[in-house]
């Protein structure tokens, strides 16, 4: 089922497999697939699952400080959704033979990566708006692409997640729109959130295509259908005119409109910062892992209770 390159039939099977993908067919559990395809998917899906779970932390911190009941309901529902998204994704990875236990272990020991955006702090309420609109908006661009992915379980999880993220993005955008039109203090708060989250959001799309090691293979196997730079450009083109219409500034002095291509061209991303955060030296890396570990430890009695119940009622 998982093709090894040492198998004499590998080239033939690989050709059939790639032809299926080219025809737009989905690869399902049970079908033949290259071992590399399986490994790449487990890496991507589990990182994605970890990002959903760690992503609950920066927003979870503000639930008790929501300014009114509606905002609190919405934020609670959103954070609950992110936990659910983590579940969908861990389960998609399990169809490839990974276990939830080993994936969680990799997260807690710091071996596994998750989206670098969650290693930035949330310091004001309107950061909830910026995360919803910018961060979830960027995630939706990536996930809309992944919904076309050649692997059935990942694609279906992504379709479900995209449908739910639509709510996340819109509740955030609604907040920023409201604050941008509110009191001078509210507008300044929204601008400050955009200032802090703009660049880390652009970094979410990953390194430039020229520096992205996995891109070619991922595109050939239909796991990704667009490159990091393409997605980043789509995001910038969508967001810049909207932010300008709201009278908000994009914190990029080099940003300009290119008449010829119709693109908004960004200045250069600070890649040193990006790699520092990826390597674990971002402002919140240690705090996020510690919070995750504490949540895991505090949940121990629940796991024990479930296990005891399971033994009594086999």
């Amino acid at each position: 089922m998982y093709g090894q390159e040492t198998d004499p039939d590998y080239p033939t099977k690989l050709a059939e497999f790639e032809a299926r993908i080219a025809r737009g067919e989905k690869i399902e559990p049970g079908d033949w697939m290259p071992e590399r395809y399986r490994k790449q998917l487990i890496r991507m899906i589990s990182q994605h699952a970890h990002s959903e779970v760690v992503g609950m932390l920066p927003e979870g911190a503000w639930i008790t400080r929501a300014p009114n009941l509606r905002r609190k309901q919405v934020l609670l529902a959103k954070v609950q959704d992110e936990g659910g998204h983590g579940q969908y994704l861990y389960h998609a990875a399990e169809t490839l033979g990974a276990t939830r236990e080993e994936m969680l272990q990799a997260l807690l020991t710091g071996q596994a990566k998750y989206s670098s955006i969650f290693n930035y702090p949330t310091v004001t309420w309107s950061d909830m708006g910026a995360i919803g609109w910018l961060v979830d908006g960027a995630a939706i661009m990536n996930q809309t692409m992944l919904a076309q992915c050649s692997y059935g379980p990942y694609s279906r999880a992504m379709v479900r997640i995209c449908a739910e993220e639509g709510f996340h993005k819109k509740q955030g955008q609604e907040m920023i729109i409201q604050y941008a039109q509110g009191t001078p203090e509210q507008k300044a708060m929204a601008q400050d959130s955009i200032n802090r989250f703009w660049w880390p959001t652009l970094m979410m799309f990953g390194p430039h295509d020229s520096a992205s090691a996995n891109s070619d293979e991922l595109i050939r196997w239909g796991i990704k259908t667009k490159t990091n730079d393409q997605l980043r450009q789509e995001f910038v083109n969508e967001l810049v005119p909207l932010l300008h219409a709201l009278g908000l500034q994009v914190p990029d002095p080099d940003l300009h409109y290119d008449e010829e291509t119709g693109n908004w061209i960004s200045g250069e991303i600070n890649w040193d910062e990006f790699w520092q955060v990826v390597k674990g030296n971002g402002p919140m890396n240690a705090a996020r892992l510690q919070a995750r570990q504490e949540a895991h430890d505090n949940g121990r009695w629940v796991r024990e209770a479930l296990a005891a119940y399971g033994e009594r009622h086999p």
Partner: protein
Amino acid sequence: MDTQWPRYEVFKQDRPGEPHESVGTVHAVDAEMALQNGRDLFARRPKCHSLWVARADAITSKTAEQLAADDAWQADIDLEAPTETYLVFQKQTERRGMTFTTHVGEVEASSPAHALQQAITTFPAEQVFVWWVCPATAVTRSEEADTLPMFAPAKDKLFRLPNQYRTVFTMQKIKRGKDVIE
């Protein structure tokens, strides 16, 4: 402690009369907990009327590729053995969607392989990408009485739906307003 509990496939019915469709899996120590977890995971939004769960290892799955590869799976079918009811599910389309297989009906069979054979003749379709068969005894279903306590709470959580936010309209209005001022 090992918490790698059995996986249950979850089947969701959006409205009465519609088929149950597989929406994903949950881990649970028993079927009752699987139903509860399935509800928390797949019924956070208004559309759910009924859920079924079945242990993943009780389901026999064959992709079109596996069926085309060989007939070995049919080798040991014993037509004399006593039969039981199996539920049949199909993956019917390659179109992008959030559900996998759809419940199409039942067959009487003496083994999973027999059920699969029966399913293929009983529920022919132009193209089936994946077949699932599962003994009816392995399926646990939410009861009609559960509909209210399990699924009603999500019904009025309309704030979870993107169409409750008028951001596109508001942005258009703001842009138009700006044009007038400028």
